């Protein structure tokens, strides 16, 4: 990801990340696209860092809240026209179909 602070390696060569790095990795973490070593580092970080757990939760809730935004759909007349066409082209209703 652009402009990421490079995660530092600790002395024992286990990757460690700081909070400032976590907040830039959070989306890739949510997408599941990070390499294993970084995922391990994030798991270790979240074990110890409540504010980052809160941050992650807030990103999730933000995405979830976006799902609830109202979205325009087809006008009822257009929907009816489409469904009428469907029935006229693909025969009557399937008798087994719940109507």
């Amino acid at each position, binding site marked *: *990801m652009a402009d990421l602070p490079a995660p530092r390696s600790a002395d024992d060569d286990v990757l460690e990340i700081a909070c400032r790095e976590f907040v830039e990795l959070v*989306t890739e973490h949510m997408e599941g696209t990070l390499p294993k070593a970084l995922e391990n580092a994030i798991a270790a970080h979240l074990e110890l860092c409540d504010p980052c757990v809160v941050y992650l939760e807030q990103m999730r809730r933000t995405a979830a*809240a976006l799902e*609830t935004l109202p979205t325009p759909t*087809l006008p009822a007349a257009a929907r009816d026209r489409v469904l009428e066409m469907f029935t006229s082209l693909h025969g009557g*209703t*399937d008798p087994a*179909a719940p109507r």
Partner: protein
Amino acid sequence: MHHDGALPAVTAAVLEGGHAAQVELLDRLRAGDRTAFAELVDAWSPMLLRVARLHVSTHASAEEVVQETWLAVIRQLDRFEGRSSLRTWVFRILENQARTRGVREARTVPWSFGSGADGHEHAGATVDRARFRGPEDRWPGGWTPEGRPTAWEPAPEDAAMAAEVRRELRAALDELPERQRTVVELRDVYGLSSDETCERLGLSPGNQRILLHRGRARLRARLEHVYRGTTGEGARRG
């Protein structure tokens, strides 16, 4: 045919071509199962309208494109070979319809979406650096006591917050740079997968993630601001 064990149409319709549940759904549709078809129309029309708007300049045109798309789906249903998911096939039909019309409307297609990043959209941290400890600190890059995020109470989905959260998110979305807004809308508001979003917008997976990340981070910050305002938690401002 017994429908009791069948997957919902919208579930079967995103499965890869050749999947047994897709074959079953196609059989149902070709046999005139209006309920299954209506399920797809109702679930997908909002998303198709949004994608159509990438190509045509007015909402009314997008409505016509989506209606024409469904009519084309109905007409071509018997010819669909099922090599892709049904949803992918519907997207292709939509984009053909939309492009034809978009050309007539001289709408230049998605702002050369795939080409290059506007630098400012990709640069910089998504959280104010002042909220983190400096390099000389014992915990460099850790949250400062004032900077750390605090849990949102009540939750955004709580009835007490939901209306204001939606209002703020809508406003904040509209203020995002267009590429970020489009990616966040397609992914989070309309429920496209990352692959679908990349394909619709001609984006690489990496660029798509960057735009999603920056967009979502700004929206999170907006909600955080709302919560600070409502809880009077303090005047610090990220």
